[in-house]
């Protein structure tokens, strides 16, 4: 690691049609940690990582990845989107999808070469999916599809990984395989942010937790953050004044 902060977020706000979804997030993510992003439904967990990657317009604030803007350093970031976000009937096979992980490193119009294929094969091997390389992606189980997405992110050979709900709808074997993989990434000094929906396993999987409900409720080592009070603030319905105000605006405007 070069000592820089993998991800620095300052006063990040996101709004859909003027209605705030994320509000004033300040954050500096240390290198080499496994970080879980936890919060109730609609708390803006996916929105947060999409906003970090510039997929959504920010209404305020800035994001720095290894000290530069996301655009400049996008090659150092790997992304695992939600499994439902793509059409699994798409006519590509497993190898094609994993090769897409290499596209960011290639010039415009350049085709993936033998070296890229080699990297893709290694990544498939890591998630135990090499035997399925020629399969059409629709003929895989949910867990296998998730592993393909992970292999694709590995093929990006990044330093910071953003994963959106990788544990949703996967079998136990895949879940433990993903956990092993995450730990391995961490040992290699990578930083991984994982949107996670299951509180009970969050404590066990992650070094640090980010409790999110429209605003950043808490961020820190799991032992410090995983406390009843903080979880209550995060999950306690509409306890925060902010979301109450938003709700009121919503009803008045209707």
């Amino acid at each position, binding site marked *: 690691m070069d000592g820089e902060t993998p991800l620095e977020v300052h006063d990040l706000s996101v709004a859909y049609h003027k209605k705030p979804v994320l509000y004033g997030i300040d954050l500096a993510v240390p290198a080499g940690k496994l970080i879980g992003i936890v919060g109730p439904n609609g708390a803006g967990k996916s929105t947060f990582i999409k906003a970090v*990657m510039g*997929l959504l317009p920010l209404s305020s604030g800035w994001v720095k990845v290894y000290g530069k803007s996301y655009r400049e350093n*996008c090659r150092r970031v790997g992304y695992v*989107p939600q499994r439902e976000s793509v*059409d699994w009937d*798409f006519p590509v096979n497993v190898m094609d999808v994993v090769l*897409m992980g290499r*596209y960011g490193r290639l010039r415009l119009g*350049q085709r993936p070469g033998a070296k890229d294929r080699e990297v893709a094969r290694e990544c498939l091997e890591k998630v135990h999916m090499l035997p399925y390389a020629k399969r059409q992606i629709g003929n895989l189980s949910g867990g296998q599809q998730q592993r393909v997405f992970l292999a694709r992110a590995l093929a*990006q050979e990044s330093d910071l990984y953003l994963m959106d709900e990788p544990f949703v709808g996967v079998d136990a074997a895949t879940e433990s395989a993903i956990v092993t993989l995450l730990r391995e990434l961490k040992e290699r000094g990578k930083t991984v942010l994982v949107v996670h929906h299951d509180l009970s396993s969050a404590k066990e999987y992650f070094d640090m937790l980010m409790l999110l409900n429209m605003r950043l409720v808490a961020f820190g080592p799991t032992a410090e953050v995983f406390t009843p009070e903080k979880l209550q603030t995060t999950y306690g319905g509409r306890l925060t004044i902010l979301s109450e105000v938003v709700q009121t605006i919503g009803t008045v405007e209707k």
Partner: protein
Amino acid sequence: MSGLLRSGKREFFDASHAHPKSRTRGVNSTAARTSAFAPVRIPTLLIFAALVLLPQALYAARISELTDTSLTERAVRFFTFQDPSLRFALLGSVLLGICCGLMGSFLVVRKLALMSDALSHAVLPGVALGFLWNMSKDPVAIFIGATIAGLLGAGLVQAIRSTTKHKEDAALGFVLASFFAVGACLVTMIQNLPDGNKSGLDKFMFGQAAALGRADVILLGIVAVVTVVIVLLFYKEFLVTSFDAAFASSGGIPAQIFHYVLMVLLAFAIVSSLQAVGVVLVAAMLVIPAAAAYLLTDRFGWMLILAAAFGVATGAMGSFLSFVGRNLPTGPLMVLAATAVFIAALLFGPRHGVLAKWWRQRSQSARIGRENMLKAMYHLLEGENFRGETIPIRELAEARREPIEDVTKSVAKLRAHGLVSFSSDHKAAVFTPDGWKRACEIVRNHRLWELYLTHAANYAVDHVHEDAEKIEHILGEDTVRQLEKRLNYAHQDPHGKLIPGHQDIYGKGPVRQGAR
């Protein structure tokens, strides 16, 4: 004006042969049409009948007029390229097939098929304005006008979706219909003009490949080359943005820009195909060949190639039929040819075809039937504590509660698969080693699954049989290994019966099984 309109009264269907005497619309009046094109007789009708299986009886009375010579003569003329206009028509159709096939593939996988329908209708006002530019069918002016109209339409769809609560379907429908209405107004206005060369505008509705000129073909050629080059050059970018736009953007590939590039190429493809296919049916030439290709392959590269090939074939077929049918509108014929290709792909596709699926289902249910019979035989042997080896057909029939004849037939099928053999008098069956192995596997799968459900999933013992009846046929060896391990290589199922183990099935012969 009103008085004129009255005298121009027209009926939609007019069974009598009478034509209205005067029209306000000069160009497209039926009188002008019928004189322009020599009346088409039966050959044409026959082709359609053959093509779409229309009951030929409808025309039975007129079949006697059929003249083979004219049909074959025209076909020969088509294939020997005697007409220069024919060469243009064919070349044009081939080029448009390539453009439409390539663009259509992207539309199908991006679920934008209806966008193409809206855009193809939306270009009409642009066509009319391009025509007005110097009152002639100037391909370049029409190309520019139509492209602008198409892109405006695409922009309007986006604007409606983002600033109103209307959903995409309404936005597309609105753009399609309102742009087309503006176009229809303009077209009827042009046709009411007292002078100028108005002919040819009506051909933009349903297309007329025979009306393609040198300039049209050159334009089509340019568009085709540009499309092919851009798709080849940026294949990987188009692939990843179509599959997963968010991932592409996160990796620094500007998905939005490639979307716009695709829309511009789409507009080009639509506009350059107008002359041959017509406003109304361009969408079909885009979507149908690509959808047929989508059914046949699992790789996007192949889909592009197949779609282009289908586009070329159907384009050429359409212009051929149009020519043989004496200048019938080309667009509908191309679309019908494309539909025929799609139906063929739908029925006979090797993996996703309806017939292939049906065949797979059939062979699977046949396999399940065989396996159930093997299982019944195993149960009979088990009932005798594996003392004998022969299973009397009569007992098997009793156990299965089926007539003896039926069971004999089923056992004969098993024999055909090398799973059992008959005793010398055909009254009893004996397992072959293969059959014995398969029977043990099925029984093992069934009992393992029952045990798994009761142990691991806390099912009641009397609830597991039905489930296991289905699972036993689809458990793979890998899963079985896992189950065995998980259940500590248990020997007994929840009902107290023996579960054949790995050694029993693969290690020893059938007879010793009972001795365990």
